[in-house]
């Protein structure tokens, strides 16, 4: 609420975000869209507890996120959030299952429990047979599936995805968006940053940013169409 973010570039202060307020309900699938430099990624970083706002608050589950001390903020990210990055950001020297287990590395779970949880989620993203491979042995789409599995392994209520289809072809992009869309049915709240209008057909709501402010927080869609339906043409959806 009322989020401001200012960057000092040396000679001048750049207002990346200038007073943004909105609410997200549990189980929502939201897209943040806007041109380059509009503040999309900055907003996602603020929502993800990664970057302190100059002003304003981020409240999640009645927790004022930025009032937490630095180590508790890390705990908050681990317990509440799953991140999916544009360029996957998998750790190249860890196998697929090790990458997926990464958020559990600092938990007190046993080795077997960690492995079991990772296997379950890898199964869900369809990569069971490739769990012992290294990331560079997988295709782009497969790597993004691993990244999604990593974001979900500790069952966070919120998943934040920065351009999750940015590095993928259109067929794989649809696959990934469907996967993300299906998570809302399991109670996950999904927030994605995207510049691809094709992705809008999967989301329930969108926030359009321009010059660090919200231009529109709505989505026009046919009321009888399910969010996960891929049969609709993207041009039907206007943010």
């Amino acid at each position, binding site marked *: 609420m009322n989020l401001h973010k200012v960057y000092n570039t040396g000679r001048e202060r750049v207002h990346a975000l200038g007073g943004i307020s909105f609410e997200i309900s549990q189980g929502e699938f939201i897209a943040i869209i806007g041109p380059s430099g509009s503040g999309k*990624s*900055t907003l*996602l*970083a603020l929502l*993800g507890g*990664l*970057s302190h706002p100059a002003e304003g608050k981020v409240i999640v589950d009645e927790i004022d996120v930025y009032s937490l001390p*630095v*180590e508790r903020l*890390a*705990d*908050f*990210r*681990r*317990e509440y*959030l*799953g*991140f999916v*990055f*544009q*360029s996957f*950001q998998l*750790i*190249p*020297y*860890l196998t697929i299952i*090790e990458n997926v*287990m*990464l*958020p*559990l*590395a*600092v938990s007190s779970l046993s*080795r077997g429990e*960690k*492995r079991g949880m*990772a296997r379950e989620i890898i199964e869900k993203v369809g990569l069971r047979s490739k769990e012992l491979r290294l990331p560079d042995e997988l295709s782009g789409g497969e790597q993004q599936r691993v990244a999604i599995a*990593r974001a979900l392994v500790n069952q966070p209520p919120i998943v934040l995805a*920065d*351009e999750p289809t940015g590095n993928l072809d259109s067929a794989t992009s649809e696959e990934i968006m469907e996967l993300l869309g299906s998570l809302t049915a399991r109670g996950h709240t999904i927030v994605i940053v995207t510049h691809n209008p094709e992705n809008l057909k999967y989301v329930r709501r969108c926030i359009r940013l321009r010059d660090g402010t919200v231009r529109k927080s709505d989505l026009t869609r046919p009321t009888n169409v399910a969010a996960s339906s891929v049969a609709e043409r993207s041009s039907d959806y206007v943010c």
Partner: protein
Amino acid sequence: MNLYNISFNNLRRRKAKMVFLVLGLAIAISTVVTLITVSRAMNAEIATSLDEYGANIVIVPKSDDLSLTYGGMAVSGISLGAHKIYEKDTEGIRSIKNADNIKIVAPKLLNAAAILQRNVLVVGVRFSDELALKKWWRLAGGRPTEKHEAIIGSEVQEKLQLGLRQSFEIEGERFVVAAILEPTGSQDDGIVFIDLKEAQRIFGKPGELSLIEVAALCYDCPIEEIVRQTSEKLPEARVMAIRQTIESKMEAMHRFEHFSYGISAVVVLVAALIVVTNMMSSVNERTREIGVFRAIGFRQKHIMKIILIEAFLVSFVAGLAGYIIGLGVSKIVTPLLTTNGSDASMMNPTLLGFSLALAVFIGLASSIYPALKAARLDPTVALKAL
């Protein structure tokens, strides 16, 4: 999956960098190991050669009436001394706290006797100890093996016109010349040396001693301390140190030791800088990776742990490698610097432990700043994507 797996797998991936780091640290450790080993070998050699200087402690009975001298030392009169020292006192010397530093204990009984109508100083000695103590003695003939065999000084030989294997009498007891001492320029030239037990028996002084010479074998052992401990054990005796024999040699040795410490300190400093540079560059290369760790909920202390576990693993391996290399180099260098350094390259668990501890200390201490820097990385800057 835990933090150790992350550290270990990262090291496996960055083999070239890690080999360079291990090598840098191992060279430093091996230099320190070499200097310590060579320095020890030199110390040991000096310690061994110290006994060639003879005794450095002399023990005589406490007395105000000095009537005999031996080796420049005043010795109490044979029957006039108020106090006496006995052969069992040699056991007391062997039981002091610094007993390990006592190499030779050579007890003596001095007595004047008439041999072939001439007065001669007869000294009862334990030949094994006496010959060990006086390495400079050159004997014509063999070492005495029988209790009635004697060594005579060159002046005695001239004075009494005695030759090898010729016999003579002391207090009615027959003795055979087993060896003639070549001129030493000392009082030994005018002495007849016989077995201590025989001397005590024929002079009627069982168990009694006139003086005890002691060689404390230790290049830097506290002679004053050994003197103090011996005095406590032998309250009836006067214990004196002959310090000048070893002080100059010890000083030279200490100079080499200080030089070794100086070189070691510089090498350790250079190694620490190599570790800092390497770990900093590793942290910079892994900025994005660290950003991911932070984003998915690793605490700052978890990031530090990952970096420090890596530093520990690398430095432990470097410590081990450094010890082995150092030992190998010592094997080559020690014989060049000493005449008897054959045991310098023996396995030494203490030195191995020291090498590992030093390497791990350098590795961890030098990685603290890079680890702190990594832990404090702003996750958004680290990720750039966000």
